């Protein structure tokens, strides 16, 4: 069996996993993101919150190579990745989930997980001769068990319930053992009873994942209880600017945040 490569071997000791500096993006006259800077440490769960239109999605899309920022830099493991596209970012160890379900409906759950990591194995040419499961079967099974989706492992992903598909969707982002996973509203559209389950899973994936080592996450989410419970640190954005960065307790106690966003 081949192993996913260690993405972060070049990172200098003690330096952040992700470093965003002075990121700016404008759409015409509207400054969607106006000079945002923050760092994510290895093993950290970093939350991004803010009202609608605060620039969270633009920030996320810039970090994922979907859009080019006007100014600023994004460093991953000390390497400037500002200009890289989604494919290159994934190959460098960035996984992601989308706000809406994005599973491959006609493939089985297990195949969804395998395709999520197979391109990290060998070269395109060598993959012609690779086994059907690319040697990733054991890894897929470990994640299937961790996500408690064993009973549906061989069903087509498109035939599952919304909640089950959401779990498959999240599991896919972890298959290639990324250093950093960006989660775009993981609770969107999810039954409240599953929200707790997702939170538990993400904590597990952060501290003792079934495959690979500790993961770092950046989470955008509207569900405040979820973010406060899950994240180690939280960044609050308002009108494209960083209003505050701190632990959940610090954010809860921050007067400005309460006034501008939480409205309590």
């Amino acid at each position: 069996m081949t192993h996913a490569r260690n993405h972060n071997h070049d990172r200098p000791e003690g330096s952040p996993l992700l470093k965003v500096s002075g990121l700016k993006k404008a759409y015409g006259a509207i400054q969607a993101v106006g000079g945002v800077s923050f760092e994510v440490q290895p093993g950290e769960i970093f939350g991004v919150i803010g009202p609608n239109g605060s620039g969270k999605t633009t920030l996320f899309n810039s970090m994922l190579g979907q859009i080019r920022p006007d100014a600023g830099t994004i460093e991953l493991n000390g390497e400037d990745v500002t200009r890289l596209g989604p494919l290159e970012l994934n190959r460098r160890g960035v996984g992601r989930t989308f706000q809406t379900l994005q599973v491959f409906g006609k493939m089985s759950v297990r195949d969804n997980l395998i395709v999520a990591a197979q391109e990290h194995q060998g070269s395109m040419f060598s993959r012609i001769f690779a086994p059907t499961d690319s040697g990733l079967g054991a890894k897929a099974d470990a994640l299937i068990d961790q996500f408690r989706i064993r009973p549906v492992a061989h069903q087509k992903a498109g035939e599952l319930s919304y909640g089950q598909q959401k779990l498959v969707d999240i599991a896919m982002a972890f298959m290639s053992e990324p250093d950093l996973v960006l989660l775009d509203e993981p609770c969107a559209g999810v039954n409240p009873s599953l929200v707790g389950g997702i939170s538990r899973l993400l904590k597990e994936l952060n501290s003792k994942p079934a495959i690979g080592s500790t993961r770092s996450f950046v989470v955008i989410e509207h569900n405040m209880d979820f973010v406060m419970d899950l994240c180690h640190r939280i960044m609050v954005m308002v009108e494209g600017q960083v209003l505050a960065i701190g632990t959940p307790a610090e954010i809860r106690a921050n007067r400005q945040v309460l006034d501008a966003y939480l409205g309590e």
Partner: protein
Amino acid sequence: MKKSALGLGLLALLVLLVAPQFLKNYGIYLLTYWLVFIIATMGLNLTVGYAGQKSLGHAAFFGIGAYTVAILLKAGVSFWLGLPAAALICFVVGIILGFPALRVQTIYLAFATLGFNTAVWLVMRNEEWLTGGTFGINNIARPSVFGASLDGNLAYYYFTLVMALLLAALLWGLLRGPWGKAFTALRDNPIRAESLGVDTRAYTLLSFAIGAAYAGVAGGLFASLVQYIEPGPFAVGSSIMMYLMVVVGGPGYFFGPVLGAAVGVLLPEWLRFAQAWYLFVFGVVVVLMMIWLPDGLLSIPDRIRARKQSRLASETRAKAAQAAGAKA
């Protein structure tokens, strides 16, 4: 593969091996014609059915393959060099045609490939020095293998059958591995695929190139089968017909082209009894299939399975509701 599917496959193979013994010359010729179109549409099924790239230019590759073999044979080059050359040239041209697919999709891509087909067809028709223009190229020889001539229709049938089986095995091996999953991922959700490290650019180009190479081989076999080629069979109409074969058989189903090509090649022959009405009947059959079986003939087992599953699920729910009612 399930045992029943394997049994069915072996039975089909047996029929393919034995059937020509009971057929007249024209029947054998027609079966060979069908095999040639199975090969061509296997390629198109990869491009359209597995990778989701709407190509209406497949007949152009079929033609490039046919003309390559015919021209090389006339130049004294062996068929055994001509056929790989046809595949290679189509592979390269396929990559080039794949580039528009990196920019446009769906109906826009279909029109781009349709334009390509027209351009290639015009070259075949107008460049008389190379292609013989509307007069075409005649007296195209059939090859011999290990000294045995394939001139007879029966011999050429078995040769084409072996080629079809080899190419099917090759494609099967490719599609059941990582490449097959990557093509399917590209078709179902290219943005998600890219976010998982699937090089969607490379797979898009490859889906065109490999599909084109299959059409090239089919074209080469076609040239030696009919022994006379002119631009007619490689026009846009043929591309649309091949696309129809893929859709009717079931895009993304491995054996779809076998049934699709049967509908496209054999059905019109069976409908000859209808004489002047045959095209009308064929048209009606196609319309009805598009209405009731938009995912093709091979989607029937899946549909039955899905129906059975939903019935089972509703029965389970009803029982659970009944049990809950009894308790209360």
